[in-house]
């Protein structure tokens, strides 16, 4: 391990320079106005949580957690996501005041990098949670809100893929012979290893009808054109009805074109109990965000009321959102010593016009031209101006 140089930052940590900073602020403003207009209330939770509560319950892999120790010897984590802290605060307090809750957040989360750089260890996340509503309308609201929010950011080319943990579980259970086989297949789907799935099915020595059904399922499950295509794999059940209803609601909202079905979607966390989805957009190689119903997490915190929501990654939003030139004009007001009060007046007058005005004494400058090059306009206030 080489010694740390003065300019270095911990792996994956990034500075935010003025231009990306402004773009982030615009995202925050757009998102905030949009979500508030839909009745979501913004909240914030602490950066540090106990490992035993939020750390263990979080869907983020243990190896990605930043861990610290407090003065009493308790293990702490830097929050790796926002859903888990919000589940904590909702079950312990907020649900007693209002139910269902509609909460929103814009916050930084922390995920440690194990090897290379190329991706941030701290990044902004924006999202919503609807807590205390088990109906299909809450799930529909989450998806509709996600689509409209993405559109509000000016993104046109994007796709939301929806699956259902219950439907997938039902298929895996029906067509395998043991819990082990079921779990193996599920974990291969979490890794998106479709080749491995086929190999595993063939190695299980299942009755031909079962293995044929699984192989057929995997070859088309990511691309069902309509919900009716999956019916041949699943006996009629509540989960399937639920998905049908959800898709009807999305259709009623006129958003079907943004939605695709993917019944292989699966999470390594078993608290995703119902529908789950991922958001993709042109312009980033990584998913923009994800969401779903996580009743199981609420149960972990001792509540049975159910919850659903989504989160978008702000760093990836910034890659995808078309950039627009900054509107405000920048002006440098340069002044000589005696002209300070006149320069103040000039600067204030220009600010009234909506310009961004920098007040700078000429005495303080080494290279006037190098400095003024950064501005759209330069105004000099000299002693002669005072005489006029």
């Amino acid at each position: 391990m080489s010694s740390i140089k003065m300019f270095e930052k911990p792996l994956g940590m990034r500075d935010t320079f003025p231009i990306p900073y402004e773009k982030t602020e615009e995202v925050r403003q757009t998102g905030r106005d949009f979500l508030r207009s839909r009745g979501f209330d913004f909240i914030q939770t602490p950066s540090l949580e106990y490992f035993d509560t939020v750390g263990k319950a979080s869907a983020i892999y243990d190896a990605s957690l930043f861990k610290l120790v407090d003065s009493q010897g308790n293990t702490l984590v830097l929050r790796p996501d926002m859903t888990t802290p919000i589940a904590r605060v909702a079950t312990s307090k907020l649900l007693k005041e209002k139910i269902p809750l509609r909460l929103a957040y814009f916050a930084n989360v922390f995920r440690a990098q194990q090897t290379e750089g190329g991706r941030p260890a701290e990044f902004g996340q924006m999202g919503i949670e609807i807590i205390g509503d088990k109906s299909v309308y809450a799930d529909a609201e989450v998806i509709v809100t996600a689509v409209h929010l993405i559109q509000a950011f000016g993104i046109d080319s994007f796709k939301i893929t929806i699956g259902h943990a219950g439907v997938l579980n039902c298929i895996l259970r029906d067509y395998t012979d043991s819990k082990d086989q079921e779990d193996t297949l599920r974990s291969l789907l979490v890794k998106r290893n479709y080749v491995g799935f086929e190999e595993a099915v063939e190695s299980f020595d299942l009755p031909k009808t079962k293995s044929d059904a699984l192989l057929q399922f995997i070859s088309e499950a990511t691309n069902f054109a309509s919900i009716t295509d999956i019916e041949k794999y699943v006996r009629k059940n509540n989960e399937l009805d639920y998905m049908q209803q959800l898709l009807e609601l999305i259709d009623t909202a006129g958003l079907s074109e943004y939605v695709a079905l993917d019944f292989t979607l699966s999470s390594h966390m078993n608290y995703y109990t119902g529908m789950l989805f991922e958001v993709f957009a042109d312009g980033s190689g990584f998913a923009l965000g994800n969401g779903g119903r996580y009743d199981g997490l609420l149960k972990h915190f001792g509540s049975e009321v159910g919850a659903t929501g989504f989160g978008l990654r702000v760093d990836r939003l910034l890659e995808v959102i078309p950039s627009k030139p900054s509107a405000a004009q920048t002006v440098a007001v340069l002044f000589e010593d005696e002209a300070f009060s006149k320069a103040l007046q000039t600067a204030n007058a220009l600010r009234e016009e909506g310009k961004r005005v920098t007040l700078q004494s000429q005495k303080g400058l080494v290279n006037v031209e190098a400095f003024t090059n950064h501005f759209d306009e330069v105004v000099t206030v000299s002693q002669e101006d005072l005489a006029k």
Partner: protein
Amino acid sequence: MSHLTIAMPKGRIFEEAYQMLIEAGFNLPEEVEMSRKLMIDIPEEDLRFILAKPMDVPVYVEHGVADIGIAGKDTLLELRRNVHELLDLKISQCYIASAGLPNTTMNEIAPRIATKYPNIAMNYYKELGEQVEIIELNGSIELAPMIGLADRIVDIVSTGRTLKENGLVEYEHITDVSSRLIANPVSYRMKSARIQELVSRLKKIVG
């Protein structure tokens, strides 16, 4: 149709995969001028090939600078990148095995394994309940047991000739390896129709 970028390993795998694409009916020139070019554009099919080191293909695909790629199962197992594994192309088939000098056992206190696949080797011995020390090498792995650097090596075996010529024997067959078609998760969605079509055409060739 959307533009598609394919990351390919240089050399033999490229040639075999390229032939498969021609067989699958893609309109590609019979001969490609390889020389030192790293990018080949095929305007007729709206395709671009980028040529990379085999180990780097999953990296290009994970970051989305290539939509799909062809990568050995060994590199996928070793790097564990976040990509979708779509199809086994069944080309450049071989396997990963452990090998060592004949009639030897592993050191009981701290068995040492030389390999260029530290993750695969570590996981394999972990599953066996054996704690080993991994020595990462970049090539000529067969040297390690011969000169006493390691008890075993974990490496790719295709014919077994290299092992034999260096007086080593195979101990355990760890996993089969072949070239796989992989996809970036976002491209898989956003260019779904195009990628699906390519997969189904290749699937027919693979059989």
